[in-house]
């Protein structure tokens, strides 16, 4: 099989800025909107997503190459991916609890939420569809996670300001947040000319 000819570092920066998983592919919106009320939790969730995305993308790539393709299990792909994600989240939760109780305090409540975060499954599916090599997949996973992290922290900071702004009643809360995200997405499109990866 041929891998696409993209420098992993370019892919890394592209997945942070020009094709941000959240602002151009809309993945992980649910938790993005509900958690971004507060910078601290946004930061915690961002770290957790980055960690889990990187690990699961690598694992899923290996499974794809050595289990799914040789055994022709394509029709079980979604189930395998989601089980890997659930398992990684579970193991990570136990490891963090053991190694660093402090970090567990920050991330603990977010980890279970991540299993159903579409960004993580989405990155795995994109990696498979676009046929990335192992190195490319890892950089893609890491970049997407960081991109997600960046976006949620930025949004949390902006939301803090809009909280006290005079917004029409029906637009309060989610409505104004959606408009804010739209403007952010437009700003990120400005990066598009910088790197071109598709």
């Amino acid at each position, binding site marked *: 099989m041929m891998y696409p000819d993209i420098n992993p570092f370019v892919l890394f920066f592209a997945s942070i800025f020009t094709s941000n998983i959240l*602002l*151009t*592919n*809309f*993945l*992980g*919106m*649910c938790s993005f*909107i*509900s958690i971004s009320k507060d910078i601290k939790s946004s930061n915690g969730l961002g770290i957790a997503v980055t960690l889990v995305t990187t690990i699961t993308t690598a694992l899923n790539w290996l499974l794809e190459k050595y289990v799914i393709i040789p055994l022709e299990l394509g*029709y*079980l*792909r*979604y*189930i395998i*991916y*989601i*089980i890997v994600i*659930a398992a990684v989240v579970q193991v990570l939760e136990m490891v963090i609890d053991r190694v660093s109780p402090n970090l567990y305090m920050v991330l603990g409540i977010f980890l*279970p939420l991540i*299993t*159903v*975060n*579409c960004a993580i*499954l*989405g990155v795995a*599916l*994109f990696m498979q*569809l676009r046929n990335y090599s192992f190195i490319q997949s890892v950089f893609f996973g890491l970049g997407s996670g960081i991109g997600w992290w960046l976006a949620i922290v930025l949004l949390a900071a902006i939301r803090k300001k809009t909280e006290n702004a005079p917004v*029409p*009643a*029906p*637009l309060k809360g*989610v*409505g*104004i947040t*959606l*408009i804010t*995200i*739209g*403007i952010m*997405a*437009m700003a990120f*499109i400005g990066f598009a000319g910088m790197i071109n990866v598709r």
Partner: protein
Amino acid sequence: MTEYRKILKNNIWLENPVIVQILGICSTLAVTNNLRNTFIMTIGVTLVTALSNFTISAMRNLIPRKVRMITQVLVISFYVIMVDIVLRAYVPDVSKALGPYVGLIITNCIIMGRAEAFAQANTPIISFWDGFTAGLGYMFVLVVVAFFRELLGFGTIFGIQVLPSTFSKWTSMVMPPSAFFVLATFLWIVRGMQIREEIKQVSGGEKK
């Protein structure tokens, strides 16, 4: 019968999963620049929600609480795989255009939400109805958003040219940011109507 009507009204209007509960936004935004894809996607989501609600409700007394979540995810992914296979066989071009978003139905929060909030505590038939109507509520929002995005972005509806060719297309409508703006505007209108309804009810009650 009244209970069924109440669920229908709740899921489509009063507690619409997308507009009021803000669930399933990912796919709401991603697939809505083309009406045909949107339509097929929402039919898929409706079927998966209804059937997985039915199954989970039928199994609700057999699942230990601890493995509840993972069982639900497995049931949902089973139906998503079926939808995926059907799409690939009958409408391969749509399946290609939707790309990973078919697989992402698994993590669509609406389905998990309905399974958790309704199917867990109700009998299979009514759970099926609840899932089905939640899917319809989702369809309602997506089709409206897609209608405006396709109309203004390409000047077409279901791929048929509607606006005269002199109409200058709004390229931004096809791009990601507009999805947020269109959804926010729609949300604005719907919430506005709902708030007005509430005020009317409250003031009407006071007069009596």
